[in-house]
């Protein structure tokens, strides 16, 4: 099985460390690519900027997307992902502090696959990450790999 990448879009270094800790605690050994803002996340996915030359067909297994992000916020990142033929089926899990009704509605409206609120209690957070990893990396069948669209 190829090493499936997890794209973690998170601007808070502490949250990044805690998420990675929770993943490793749960023996989830997948490579984690971290994007610190929405623009960099899209650069990675669409092989732009510092990621120029990356094969865009090489999609992450799952995107863990925070909503409140610098430059391009989470909802706009999600919109861009769904708008592009290469990434429109990419599983995206919103992982955020907010449980505002409007955030939930917008996220699902824009095609989020799941919405998880980060608990403050690390034990609960680690458990949430464990279940996420189990479900999205093991149980869930990913969409079939897409060929690069003919130009």
């Amino acid at each position, binding site marked *: 099985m190829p090493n499936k990448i997890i794209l973690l879009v998170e601007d*808070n270094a*502490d*949250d990044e*460390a*805690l998420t990675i*800790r929770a993943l490793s605690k749960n023996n989830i050994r997948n490579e984690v690519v971290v994007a610190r803002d929405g623009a960099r996340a899209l650069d990675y996915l669409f092989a732009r900027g510092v990621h120029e030359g990356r094969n865009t067909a090489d999609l992450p297994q799952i995107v863990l997307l925070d*909503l*409140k992000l610098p430059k391009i916020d989470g909802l706009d990142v999600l919109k861009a992902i769904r708008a592009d033929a290469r990434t429109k089926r990419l599983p995206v899990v919103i992982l*955020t*502090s*907010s*449980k*505002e009704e409007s955030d939930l509605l917008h996220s699902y409206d824009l095609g989020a696959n799941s919405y998880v609120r*980060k*608990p*403050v*209690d*690390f*034990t609960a*957070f680690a458990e949430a990450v464990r279940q996420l990893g189990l479900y999205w990396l093991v149980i869930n069948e990913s969409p079939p790999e897409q060929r690069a669209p003919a130009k």
Partner: protein
Amino acid sequence: MSAMELESFEDALAASREGLRVQLERYKSLVLALAQVIWTQNSKGVMTGEQPSWATYTGQSLAEYVGRGWLDAVHPDDKASSVAVWARAVSGGVPYELEQRLRRCDGEYRYFSVRAVPVLDANGSIREWVGIHTDITERKRNEQTLRDSERRFRELADSMPQIVWGADPDGHFDYYNQRWYEFTGRPEGVTGDSSWTDVVHPDDQKECLERWHSATRSGDAYEIEYRLREKTGVYHWFLRRALPVRDRTGRITRWFGTCTNIDGVKAKEEVLRCANVETAAANRELESFSYSVAHDLRAPLRSIDGFSQATLEDNADQLDAQGKANLARVRKAAQTMARLIDDLLSLSRVSRLELHRENVDLTRLARGIGARLHETDKDRDVEIVVQDGLVAEGDVTLLGAVMENLLGNAWKFTSQTTKGRIEVGLASKDGREAFLVRDNGAGFDPAHAEGKLFGAFQRLHAATDFPGTGIGLATVQRIVRRHGGQVWAEGEVGRGATFYFALSGGA
């Protein structure tokens, strides 16, 4: 003539006199009843000879009315004008008409219409005048009554602060009160269809005319708000009311209406509209503030909790029991603060959310919450009894939060009771129906509850005995008040508590 013959003659004379008197009386009654007096005058307009009708009506004797004596029966104020008309007609030899008051035999002056025509002889010159006086007193009185009532209407209409107008059944304007002419500066008395349309603000003209025309077609009263131009050129807001006046058969005989200046109301509406805009802006600001609170205040707490845990795990060897206990306290405090933030947010959401009223099945709601409480705390042995058929009119989400808080409280405060029992039902308190949630738990001291029970961050128990943020009941109170209702409680230390809430639409 013998005495006997004389006697019989006198008898006959007396009888015939009596007959004549009766005849005369009858004639007089007839003249008075007919209310018409017929007379003749010679070519010069002078009364001559017997004028039985005149004499009977006026009571004037021949000596009194001959010549120009008849003028004495005419009301002094009408003499000059009557003489003028009469003199002109006589000299011109043309028929004439006039009105005058004539003294009846009982001294009362009555109004008469007079018509006289010259009677010509064979060679075309005037032989005499024939005239007729017709009593028109009743008509005059009616006319006066009408004039009085019209004057009263005008005085009333002119004394009103509003503009008053009138139109015929087809919608043609034929009356305005004084106020209209003062306001518009138009010459007094000018009415007609074009008398008002161009005073209406150009933006309001179309709707104003449409409403008026449709009303005159349908016959329905209506109201409209529009702007009218004052003579100074300034437009003012008016409320125009139009009302059809119908006769006994239901046919519209007139339209009446008023225009009331509502500048004051409009100004207040504007103030209110601005206030609403400001409130909406403040609410949006609050919303984005809450959003930041939710997101940004929780992140550091996650770090505090997460890295404390990481230290506990990674550095377990370096920490003694006290150090581990201290870190556990740090974690607990972080989690408490996170709960506080969540509760505060839900409290503020209660005020922000729009209220959607519907019939809410409280019984089902309460049983669902009860089942969840049993599910999360399987060790607890608490009996939850919910009355059947509890229906409240309110917002289902918010009432859900009320039940969640009250049942959650009851669940919490029965945690140290051996045989816990929670009851949800309907009670009649002081003549009004209220829902109640009763428990047999820790209760509270009413002496300390005053003003505290429903206040945010207020707690009546130590957090070590019963954990909580002290926001639950504040949320309950805010929700109930938003429904226009009331919430109150009864309790006693160690003997449980009962919370009541009544909503505005009846419990």
